[in-house]
């Protein structure tokens, strides 16, 4: 297999054994990007100079003598970063006109930790504007295509990152997930995506969409890669008050311990045949059999408040967004409209011209929900329901160790299929949204393909700060199947 097709952990092995240099790896990916990026459009910014510079640095570390195990985990590994994580001196646009030319003078904690681990940056990936969307069609700079079918969406909002991993344009990538934005595109593109527990990964430098829901996580080619990435980016950060001061385990340590006796819950509210694509349902049922064959005990559970998740989410997320996006006012940085009459006119024009339609829709929804006279009925009520949803999971996890669901009710849909109907688009996240509301970890991994060769994703949920069990279950399933080895038929 060519270098770009390897998993992160295989690539790492070659690099630390000095069979290849970091520059070899970097060139392999830049070549691959040159070949398929014109078709996929996964990147907003490519950083060739930075790539060489970082690969050079990695090679120097490799020559430095201190051998192998002592080397930082990602030495020389080429990665892609979603364009809502601030990278010092490198454009960070959030796929918005508003930040089209914004160059942050600071680095996000997640990317700073990758840098400390020795990674090599390839570029910044496409996304739905300000991470609002499920198809990457809300990008102000063009849609990313699904590498499995260029006529379909890659999912979103981290569609660029998922497509880049699926198309072997990077060894792995970072995404962010507010309501399914890592897991749903991972499912659509047939790769692994993990939304860690809220508070596991620092949000410092992640451009905020909905602060109480946003979380950064890895998108990788397999589960082991995911664990390696988590080791690098996780852990308490004094710059983020909401990052949890809990021990960071070595996520690779118990990865291969198997799942004999593991209790697996299937929420009856999620496995409703008429709410899910037939083939997706079928794939999940097959996966259940596999889990059982590996020694897991599978049982039905109930999450009674699941039906309120979408409504709750779209009140809370938009409320926070309406406030988080207020800073884009044309005064300090970013886009400013010209030809304004006065201050108010400058604000109005800047925000009308700088934001796309979905972002504006959500700002308006959130502004409304927080308005005096509506706050109690919307925001406050939604917070109460959020507590009930969280309690559902707490109850369920008294009886089971993990919960499995489909990641998305359908495989990747066609470009343009849902752009005219926001409600249809919002429903693509029906299985992922509760997880953000509850703050628990959720992972998507491939568990099948449809008859027209589109990947299907299975979601595995765990207790707060128990990514280890989620990863262990995912690894066991993955090793028993070959879905993760399948590649899209790109030239």
């Amino acid at each position, binding site marked *: 297999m060519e270098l770009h097709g390897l998993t992160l952990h295989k690539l790492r092995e070659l690099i630390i054994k000095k069979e290849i240099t970091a520059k070899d790896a970097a060139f392999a990916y830049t070549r691959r990007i040159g070949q398929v990026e014109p078709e996929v459009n996964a990147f907003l910014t490519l950083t060739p100079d930075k790539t060489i510079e970082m690969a050079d640095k990695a090679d120097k570390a490799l020559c430095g003598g201190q051998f192998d195990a002592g080397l930082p985990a990602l030495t020389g590994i080429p990665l892609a970063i979603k364009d809502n994580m601030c990278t010092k001196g490198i454009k960070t646009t959030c796929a918005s006109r508003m930040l089209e030319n914004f160059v942050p003078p600071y680095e996000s904690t997640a990317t700073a930790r990758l840098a400390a681990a020795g990674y090599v940056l390839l570029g910044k990936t496409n996304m739905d504007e300000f991470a609002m969307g499920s198809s990457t069609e809300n990008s102000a700079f063009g849609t990313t295509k699904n590498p499995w079918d260029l006529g379909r969406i890659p999912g979103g909002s981290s569609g660029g990152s998922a497509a880049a991993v699926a198309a072997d344009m990077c060894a792995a990538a970072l995404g962010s997930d507010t309501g399914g934005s890592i897991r749903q595109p991972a499912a659509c593109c047939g790769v692994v995506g993990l939304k860690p527990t809220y508070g596991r990964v620092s949000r410092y430098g992640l451009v905020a969409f909905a602060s109480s829901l946003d979380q950064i996580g890895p998108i990788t080619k397999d589960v082991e890669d995911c664990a390696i990435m988590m080791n690098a980016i996780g852990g308490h950060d004094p710059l983020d008050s909401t990052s949890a001061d809990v021990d960071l385990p070595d996520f690779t340590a118990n990865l291969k311990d198997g799942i004999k006796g593991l209790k697996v819950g299937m929420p009856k509210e999620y496995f409703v045949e008429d709410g899910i694509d037939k083939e997706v349902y079928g794939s999940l049922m097959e996966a259940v059999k596999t889990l059982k064959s590996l020694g897991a005990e599978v049982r039905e559970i109930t999450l009674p408040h699941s039906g309120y998740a979408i409504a709750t989410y779209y009140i809370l997320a938009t409320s926070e967004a309406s406030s988080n996006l207020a800073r884009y006012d044309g005064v300090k940085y970013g886009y400013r409209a010209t030809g304004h009459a006065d201050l108010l006119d400058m*604000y109005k024009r800047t925000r009308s011209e700088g934001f796309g339609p979905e972002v504006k829709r959500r700002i308006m929804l959130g502004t409304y929900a927080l308005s005096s006279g509506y706050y109690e009925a919307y925001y406050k009520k939604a917070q109460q329901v959020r507590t009930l949803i969280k309690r559902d999971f707490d109850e369920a996890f008294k009886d089971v160790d993990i919960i499995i669901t489909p990641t998305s009710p359908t495989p990747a849909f066609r470009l343009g299929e849902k752009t005219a109907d926001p409600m249809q688009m919002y429903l693509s996240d029906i299985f992922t949204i509760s997880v953000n509301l509850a703050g628990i970890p959720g992972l998507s991994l491939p568990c099948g393909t449809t008859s027209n060769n589109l990947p299907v994703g299975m979601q595995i949920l765990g207790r707060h700060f128990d990514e280890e069990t989620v990863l262990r279950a995912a690894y066991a399933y993955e090793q028993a199947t070959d879905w993760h080895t399948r590649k899209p038929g790109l030239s």
Partner: protein
Amino acid sequence: MQYEPVIGLEVHAQLKTASKIFCGCSTKFGRGPNSQTCQVCIGMPGVLPVLNKTAMDFIIKTGLAMNCTVAPYSRFARKNYFYPDLPKGYQISQYELPVCQGGYVEIAIDGETKRIGLTRIHLEEDAGKNLHEGIEGASHVDLNRTGVPLMEIVSEPDIRSASEAAEYMRKLRAILRYIDVCDGNMEEGSLRCDANVSVRPVGRKEFGTRAELKNMNSFKNVQKAIEYEIKRQIAVIEDGGKVAQETRLWDTSRGITLSMRGKEEAHDYRYFPEPDLVPVEVSKEWQDGIRATMPELPDAKRERFVREYGIPDYDAMVLTESRALADYYESAAKLSGAPKQASNWIMGDVLRELKSAGAEAEQCPLEPERLAGMIKLIESGVISGKIAKTVFEEIYGSKKTADEVVKEKGLVQITDEGEIAKAIDEVMAANPQNVEQYRTGKVALIGFFVGQVMKKTGGKANPGVVNDLLRKKLA
């Protein structure tokens, strides 16, 4: 009809922390525009606030000093509005769960103590400043002040006059300065005040419609603005009109309040809990630790001064207005062993000198040691009170001690009876007619003789001895 004003104050006090409330930038005043900013206080994409613990310590200390309940669990909220000096488009403040609730401060009004209730004290960040002057066709924004920690102290509507309002402000300032959390400078804006003012006919229970007054940047202006507003509202009602609910600005130069915005234009701030900060839990240990650092507060000190030093309550109140002045008095009282004399000299001469120089007690050039030295000379009869006035002038602006001045200028009091008797004899010999008149009953002439003897001795004769001897010799 008689009207009664109902007043509540919202006071913003800037905390004396070295760094800002949510980032590490300095809070120093008067540096070049935007020189004390970082990505956090500028509100760049993706940055997050981290609460300054010292700001929490300060508000807890304030709450304890003002008899508040310090909430075991409080949280921050976002107050959303657009303005160029507000870089995030929201101010991080507190709404539903402030750090301090309830409490009160006591003020002295016409010799009576009145308790002014507090609703709450909460923590928030300051905004920046828009700059318009000297810039053609544009406005600039200076974000140095953005993120400087503020405490908002909200009173109950317990205040009934403009002078009570001013007295309440003075008391707040005194407490804040005692506990060293705010420098209390109204002119520089580190202490700011908004007032909610309404009037109602005496005897009525319901409040009238209130106006919110802003832009009063001194104690005097607080009093003047409220006085004006009370009169204005009464006039509106007497004319058969209705007081509008609105925000009004105090115009210092014209001495009037002007409507800034009405109820219809009031902002909807869309408060909601700040998701970027975790709720703050204040443990009993945290509170106790801060209580242990609490200095003696003005009221307690004032009572103690009356009790221990036997000075009048009014003097004790004046002397405890600032911690520095109280400390000054207390050292002078102890060192001189004459607390009443010390009080008289400080209340009179020292405060007069300070006031004319516009200085505070901590800047007084005359140390309490040297003042006490002078008082000792008076007490031991070395100099008279009259001579002491001259000595005071000499030592106040110099480094000299009273002893040195007295020696240098030969100001030692004459108490030697022989010397004084000699002077009296000379005076009597020179004024036989007056002696005659005195002896025939015009005893008021004693003053004349005293004056003459003092003149002869260059003011140095002990007045008591002079009086005694004169009476004997004239008898």
